[in-house]
């Protein structure tokens, strides 16, 4: 093996490939986060609902999704779900980057199941008397959730949600199995083309670590700036 030379992968087209992968990984993370948060909130509210069918639905969704590996989710969305679509929709999907769309679907579902549990325990940590007081003042269920319970739950919920975002960032790497051209996919591509395994994986690892570190710092800053108030 020739000597370690970072310049090979940090210049020319290899750099462009890795950079494109890095950008797509970030985009996957952000889009998934934006879609997963409302879905997770809805699931958490279902699980806390007084109506047992809704609770059952929430439970099934969370347990069903969390107990299946992300890799299987990705393969199912990419290989199986399009078979269930009408022909026109399938053609549209393959014309519009099925790899990325399916990756976002799988990641969103997977992440939201985990986030739902964090949101649920955040909401549960707000004393039930808060909800009762709001209801007694004449707020409906949804307004009292929105104006009274959720704002208090947010402080408790945000730190675990940030750590779920860190998992999400790392999980985007698995999308390489369905050929989504994110960072890990591009790293394999550069490695195959350049035969520079150590350099390629070194740079890729650093890129993953840099964003992970950033998210970790963000969590620390949040907890310092907005600590959980003792109730």
């Amino acid at each position: 093996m020739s000597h370690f030379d970072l310049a090979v992968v940090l210049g020319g087209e290899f750099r462009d490939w890795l950079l494109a992968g890095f950008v797509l990984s970030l985009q996957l993370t952000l889009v998934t986060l934006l879609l997963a948060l409302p879905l997770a909130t809805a699931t958490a509210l279902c699980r806390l609902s007084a109506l047992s069918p809704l609770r059952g639905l929430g439970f099934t969704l969370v347990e069903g999704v969390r107990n299946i590996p992300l890799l299987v989710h990705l393969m199912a969305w990419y290989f199986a779900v399009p078979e269930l679509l009408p022909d026109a929709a399938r053609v549209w999907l393959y014309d519009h980057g099925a790899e990325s769309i399916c990756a976002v679907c799988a990641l969103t579902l997977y992440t939201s199941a985990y986030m739902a549990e964090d949101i649920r325990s955040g909401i549960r940590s707000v004393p039930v008397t808060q909800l009762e007081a709001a209801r007694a003042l004449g707020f409906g269920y949804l307004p009292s959730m929105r104006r009274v319970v959720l704002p208090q739950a947010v402080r408790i919920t945000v730190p675990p949600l940030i750590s779920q975002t860190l998992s999400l960032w790392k999980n985007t790497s698995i999308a390489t199995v369905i050929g989504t051209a994110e960072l890990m996919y591009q790293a394999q591509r550069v490695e195959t083309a350049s035969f520079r395994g150590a350099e390629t994986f070194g740079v890729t690892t650093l890129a993953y670590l840099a964003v992970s570190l950033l998210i970790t710092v963000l969590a620390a800053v949040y907890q310092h700036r907005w600590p959980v108030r003792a109730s």
Partner: protein
Amino acid sequence: VSGLVDTYWLYFLVGQYPHGPLGGLALTVLLGSSALVLALPLGVLLGLARISNWRLLRWPVTALVHVVRGTPLLMVIFWAYFFLPGLTGQKTSQFSTMLAALVIFNGAYLAEIVRAGIQGVPRGQMECARSLGLGYAAAMRHVILPQAGRNMLPSLVNQFVTTLKETSLGYIIGLSELSFIGSQINIQVMTRPVAVYGFVAVSYFVLCFGLSRLAYAIETRLARDRPAAALHSA
């Protein structure tokens, strides 16, 4: 679906065994449990180092744990895949590659579970053991770790579930575990992806959901037994 099951059930359960290497569901369970069993001692050592008074030990191990936890498992698998053969000087099988990656990765996660478990034991326990004349190692082994182990049990079972799910990444380096076998069957059958992947998903679900329920049951039981235990130690 029943036609598929009739044709492929044995392949799905054990791969090509006994005419070839073990695979399928059996390999997934074997890989997941050996990874966790081997990662446990590593996790205990790293966890102890994380709370050591000796900075020369604490700082590098803390850095290592953070680096591994900030890296995707897939990255660790690729490092193992490309550099284990050079390191050991011989061709490494996919199973050993995957096992090595999982042990390192889970070691770092278990370290945090062990650390939390130990820190969950009241400080007085250590002080008491030391003042009774036990050395640090003996106090750890006979007094702290048994109590910490109890606290850690639900997290350990959950980590086992995570590990079982992580074994599916063996697919990427061509290890014939459950999801790899699933996609092989899908390629052979061609026309039934929904049934095949649905079946793979259900298999993982049964395995992992059963174990998560076990973790939940242990947690409930420990919570119920706690008042009595506290009374004893007081």
